[in-house]
């Protein structure tokens, strides 16, 4: 759906927001529509994406991994090579630049794993805007390196101790801040979630991933990819990968975090196991109990630990254009180690979900087929978490 004027992807999306935010959301939409196709804005953003963030990212043929799986050719879209180590910078540069055009002097953001927080801090540092980041207290501990990085980059980090102390609570707290400082502050949301126009705006800024894949795949094989895979938490790298390819014949698969298994309570697989509801300004699939209370989620990767999902993914699921699968923590660790050892690439645990799925799919696919996996981030931040997991679960 190109630009949903009413903010709805089918029945999903919308803007369920406190009235105080309505003028801010309207101002945001007005400015986004004004600048998104503006030649100078695009040129400036393009400059930063190329010269500062390192675009375009390579589409790397993972020969060793492909041979190990024994089926289709696996290509990795190397978003992990971007400045900051993840796809998040695509969106933060776009939105921070927009905030600057809107004369906003203060930017706030939420972060889960810390990647969006770091990318926000970087974009704000280079564009000269003050930034503050809300982060679940639990996440500040499991991703403390990213807290140091944000601090060094000049961002103030607020640990959030309410609720489950993870990403959803960081979003709640960022929204509360925005309500309080609505005139001066720009809320730089990091995923394709929230009230309209965030889901479509974040998708547009991330669509550079899918657009590049199209061009690069054409150069390599003179066709579009046969299968495309990306991990889904809120779903920004996935929607950026999928959106430019939904009109092709590609089979598209999003991979959610199955944690300790979909039958356990410990997962974050919103589309695979959730039901419709309203959270964070949008109608979408949610993990909730029998009365609509949002339930706590689990994933080995902090970045996927979220009980909602971008509304366009809900739409793509219900219209059956995209299949949503999931990978367990154990499968993710296997994929993490496999990619690390066969290709010398340490993936983020989030991205390792997509690798796990690719390994399953590749085995069942023909050698002539191509699989593109978006490697949304690098895994340096996760090395400690993986070590911990291995010492707990592997005897030797």
């Amino acid at each position, binding site marked *: 759906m190109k630009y949903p004027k009413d903010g709805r992807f089918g029945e999903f999306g919308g803007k*369920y927001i*406190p009235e*105080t935010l309505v003028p801010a959301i309207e101002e945001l939409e007005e400015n986004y529509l004004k600048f998104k196709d503006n030649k100078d804005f695009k040129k400036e953003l393009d400059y930063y994406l190329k010269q500062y963030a390192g675009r375009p990212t390579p589409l790397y043929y993972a020969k060793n991994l492909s041979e190990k799986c024994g089926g289709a050719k696996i290509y990795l879209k190397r978003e992990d090579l971007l400045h900051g180590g993840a796809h998040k910078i695509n969106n933060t540069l776009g939105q921070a630049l927009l905030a600057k055009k809107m004369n906003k002097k203060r930017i706030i953001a939420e972060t889960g794993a810390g990647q969006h927080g770091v990318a926000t801090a970087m974009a704000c540092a280079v564009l000269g805007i003050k930034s503050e980041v809300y982060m679940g207290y639990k996440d500040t501990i499991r991703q403390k390196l990213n807290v140091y990085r944000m601090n060094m980059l000049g961002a103030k980090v607020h640990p959030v101790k309410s609720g489950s102390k993870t990403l959803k609570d960081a979003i709640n707290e960022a929204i509360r801040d925005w*309500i*309080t400082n609505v005139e001066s502050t720009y809320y730089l949301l990091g995923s394709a979630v929230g009230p309209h126009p965030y889901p479509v705006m974040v998708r547009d800024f991330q669509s550079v991933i899918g657009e590049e894949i199209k061009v690069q795949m054409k150069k390599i094989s003179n066709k579009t990819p046969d299968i495309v895979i990306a991990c889904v938490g809120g779903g920004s790298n996935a929607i950026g990968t999928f959106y430019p390819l939904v009109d092709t014949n590609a089979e598209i698969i999003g991979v959610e975090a199955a944690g300790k298994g979909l039958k356990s309570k410990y997962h974050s697989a919103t589309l695979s196991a959730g039901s419709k509801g*309203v959270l964070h300004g949008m*109608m979408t699939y949610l993990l909730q109990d029998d009365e*609509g209370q949002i339930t706590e989620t689990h994933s080995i990767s902090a970045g996927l630990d979220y009980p909602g999902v971008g509304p366009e993914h809900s739409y793509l699921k219900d219209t059956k254009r995209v299949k949503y699968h999931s990978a367990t923590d154990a499968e993710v660790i296997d994929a993490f180690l496999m990619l690390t050892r066969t290709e010398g690439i340490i993936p983020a645990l989030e991205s390792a979900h997509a690798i796990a799925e690719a390994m399953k799919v590749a085995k069942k696919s023909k050698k002539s087929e191509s699989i593109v996996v978006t490697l949304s981030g690098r895994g340096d931040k996760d090395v400690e978490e993986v070590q911990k997991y291995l010492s707990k679960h592997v005897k030797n």
Partner: protein
Amino acid sequence: MSRIKEKFAELSAKKEKALIAYIMVGYPNENATISVVRGLIKGGADIIELGFPFSDPLADGPVIQNASTVSLDNGIKLNKFFNIVKKIRKETDIPLILMTYTNILYHKGYSKFIAEAKNAGIDGFILPDMSIEESKEYLTSAKNTADTIFLVSPNTTKSRIERIAKLSSGFLYLVAVYGTTGVKIGIQNYTLNAIKEVKKITKGKIPVGVGFGVSTPEDVKKYIKAGADAVIVGSAFLKLIEKIPQNKLESSIAAFTKSLKRQTVQT
């Protein structure tokens, strides 16, 4: 006529303004809720807002957030909540408003939820994350059954206030300040201006209630003086409840309520 409308008509005849009290049901426990309600009524509250907890109360400040968590931890579910409402309804005819978040109604289905609430004794709803753009099914379901109280803010445009007022029934809720519930920033000039502006736009067709950060008799006095038809006090009650031993709840709440209510009588 709904209980809320009747109440405003009755007060208007007496040249009084309304004191609306908000409490979180199940905070700090079920029994306390009944004592608190009795205290509120004894102290002269005109309308009571009963909060049903939501896991992610994004318009609420720390006090109500904490009360929501405690209430959920105490096992407050809809069934229990409606039973408490029924108990209260047996004792009193005071208008009761249910305040919660959109997902709680959406999840059960608007019609079903509103019918059950009405049956328990609820007269109206406040949903801080329900914008008028998304309210169609909610409004249809509540029509002729319960009042739908929407919120406006000091930054809401004139034309939007007009649209929101048209869709509201019972009263129109003016959020006093930029912030979450229970915010402590004192009385702002922009709030006093907003009260006058909203009153001018609504032309007396619907009462205007002011809430968020209203906590003292002095606040009540100033907002009433600026033209508010009602004031809503919430976090201040919860803070008081936190401090008082359970056997003194009813009398302490009654005394504090009385001190607030007094300011709505002197016009």
